[in-house]
């Protein structure tokens, strides 16, 4: 394809999800020139169709510094992206359905005790009295008062819109066909564009593996498909974002009254599209009716799914490439990227400008997946 437009920029970003868009915004605030290339629409994939949990509780300890950094950004969301994104600091309650679950919650509380989450275990009568709308199925919970939820359909595209306003060149419906190392930087072909950049950020979500592979880095990234449901608007019922120890279901009620819930896995239609699955829907609804008796008479008006990129250890790949100077990865958030997304953007921008992050990210190094005898030649 012949390029009809040539662009030279400091940083090219592949992918307009929350990570790429937040990076674009942070880079603009540092004064760097940014071009973001999005195959579809910004914030329309996993960043936009996820559950909307803004939750630190339950993350592995190595993610908490990043989550805390993000937590601070969430508190200034309107100043950051110009909209409130329906962010509510409702608190997050993780339920135990058995004594064993409760022991796990207590063990987690111990593990993150010094990391500033302020977790509180609530059980027995105090638990019943505090959240009377929960049925008998749950016996206790771990309460994280600073967590909350937001509308990902607004927040994620909101970062892209803010980045554009701050001067980032954002091109939607522009798929990257080729990205190669060229001289001191990179050369990309995307639609009718030929792009030259000094640095390249790989924020292509579930589709990041192909770009990593193009630079000789093999990541065992697999696509996963959440199973989501929403009810019709209901009277105010859940005042907290709810999770369950051991997984299976999570739920929140939005300002308008709809209860959003998720759990289980959908099914892939192809590489780019997914649908909720019949058996996962049945399991989700059964658990919802058990945990939240008031939902039993409610109607579900929509199921949906999406495509996210999961790593084997469920930690993201975040940091510089091991093969290619100037290439920086930010993907593989394994269904938990929404809350940390804003901080991921800042970290990516720091890595681009300074070559290092002020927040610890060693656990997310792509090198942890290095194939023993793989080809490590840059494409």
């Amino acid at each position: 394809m012949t390029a009809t437009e040539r662009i030279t920029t400091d940083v090219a970003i592949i992918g307009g999800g929350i990570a790429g868009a937040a990076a674009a915004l942070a880079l603009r605030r540092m004064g760097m020139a940014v071009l973001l290339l999005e195959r579809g629409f910004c914030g329309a994939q996993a960043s936009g169709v996820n559950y909307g949990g803004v939750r630190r509780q339950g993350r592995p300890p190595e993610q908490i510094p990043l989550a805390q950094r993000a937590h601070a950004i969430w508190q200034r969301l309107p100043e950051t992206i110009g909209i409130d994104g329906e962010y509510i600091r409702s608190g997050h309650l993780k339920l135990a359905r058995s004594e064993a679950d409760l022991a796990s919650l207590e063990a987690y509380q111990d593990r993150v005790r010094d990391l500033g989450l302020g977790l509180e275990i609530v059980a027995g009568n105090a638990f019943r009295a505090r959240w009377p709308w929960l049925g008998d199925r749950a016996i206790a919970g771990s309460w994280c008062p600073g967590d909350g939820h937001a509308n990902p359909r607004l927040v994620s595209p909101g970062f892209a819109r803010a980045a554009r306003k701050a001067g980032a060149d954002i091109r939607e419906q522009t798929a990257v066909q080729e990205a190669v190392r060229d001289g001191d930087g990179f050369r990309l072909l995307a639609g009718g564009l030929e792009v030259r950049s000094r640095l390249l950020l790989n924020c292509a979500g579930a589709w990041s593996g192909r770009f990593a592979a193009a630079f000789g880095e093999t990541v065992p990234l697999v696509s996963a498909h959440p199973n989501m449901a929403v009810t019709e608007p209901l009277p105010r019922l859940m005042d907290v974002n709810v999770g369950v120890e051991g997984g299976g279901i999570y739920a929140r009620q939005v300002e308008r009254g709809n209860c959003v819930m998720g759990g289980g896995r959908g099914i892939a239609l192809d590489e780019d599209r997914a649908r909720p699955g019949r058996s996962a829907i049945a399991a989700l609804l059964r658990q919802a009716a058990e945990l939240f008796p008031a939902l039993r008479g409610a109607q579900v008006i929509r199921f949906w799914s999406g495509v996210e990129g999961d790593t084997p250890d469920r930690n993201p790949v975040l940091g510089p490439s091991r093969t290619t100077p100037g290439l920086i990865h930010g993907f593989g958030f394994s269904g938990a990227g929404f809350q940390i997304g804003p901080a991921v953007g800042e970290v990516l921008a720091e890595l681009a400008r300074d070559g290092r992050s002020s927040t610890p990210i060693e656990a997310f190094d792509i090198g942890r997946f290095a194939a023993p005898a793989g080809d490590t030649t840059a494409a």
Partner: protein
Amino acid sequence: MSGEIRPVIVGAGPAGIRAAQALVTAGLRPVLVDEAPKGGGQIYRRQPDGFTRDAKTLYGTEAAKATALHRTIDGLAIDHRPNTLVWNIEAGALDLLREGRAERLPYSHLILATGATDRILPIPGWTLPGAYSLGAAQVALKYQGCGIGRRVAFIGTGPLLPLVASQYLKAGAEVVAVLDTARTADKLAALPGLLRGPATLAKGLRLLAALKAGGVPVRHGARPLRILGTDRVEGLAWHDGDRERRIDCDAVAFGYGLRSETQLADLAGCRFRFDPLNRAWLPERDAAGRSSVAGVYLAGDGAGIAGADAAELAGERAALALLEDLGRPVDRACAARLEAKLAAIGRFRRGLERAFPFPTDWAAQAPDDLVVCRCEEVSAGTLRATATRWGTPELNRLKALCRVGMGRCQGRMCGAAAAEILAAHRGVPVEAVGRLRGQAPVKPIPVAIEDAPEEAA
């Protein structure tokens, strides 16, 4: 069900019933699933038990066709499942909801005869009690024998407009006006096309004559301005081309033709294309009714509006296609005859579209405070402001950003209007903004849905 032939038909209207009949004739035993308690569909909808109106009263000139269809469905030895919603399709099986219970119904072949609903282009005041779509006004009368009001105004366009008005007149309601947005010039220009269906044209002219004989004012070139009233409908303001007029009434029925119910075709994976005649994205079908997905067939108004007669023909033709694909012997002359008749109706249909054209100026004239999406309370102004603020070129993105089409009806009622607003606002043809993707459930299902025991195939 290893290799077993189990055709499933969704929809027990004219298309579904004729499809079932043709399959039974060939020795198959299809399953026929339908939301209504009794087969017949919308146009030949049957009254509840205990109601005693005769066929002539209920169906007028179409009484013989209605009776024939009802006899057919009642006499067929098939597995007919009334009161059953198909809410999802996944991996060769339908998900059903019957009396609060979930069931899974595997199929070897699927005929979708899902019918249509009104195409709604909202009018200011349309959420007032007493404002109904034309189809809903007809259903109230036909099914339960009650009208939507005593003094009813009819506005919009399409064949249903004079039909429902004349049915109300016959039922004893006062029809205060029939206001067609089509101009007299449209009707005249349509005549050559309509003459291809002289019997239908004659029926239409008789309806108009009956309305005029009943003293009903019939106007062309009307434009609705707003439905008046505070707590319920008290009147209708409209424009006659020269000036604003007002009319007192206690109910308004409005509509602009019909729109196909395409969600199940979407969930079945059928490919869609934009159809200019229907001004809608429709699942592709060949002349026999084959969709783009092997083993999935489309018949009747659910894949493009052509009316009940065409639905009967298309249902039978789709069943023959299914039999052909199974390698069964099929009367090819009969299949060709059905296709020829369908093609003729298609030509007549183009004439109808000329006689009752879509009001392409609707979107430009919709005021900002007009509620477009009732479920999520999204106004035309919000749609425009969202499109501008976010630079949204596409309907699903607009939905994500402002919730239009995200509520109970999942865009079935507001999707067409929202697409028109977005397209007009951006100055592009309506097909350029895309279509709302279909998602399960097709209609709401309860959280406390019970699993029925797995059926032995």
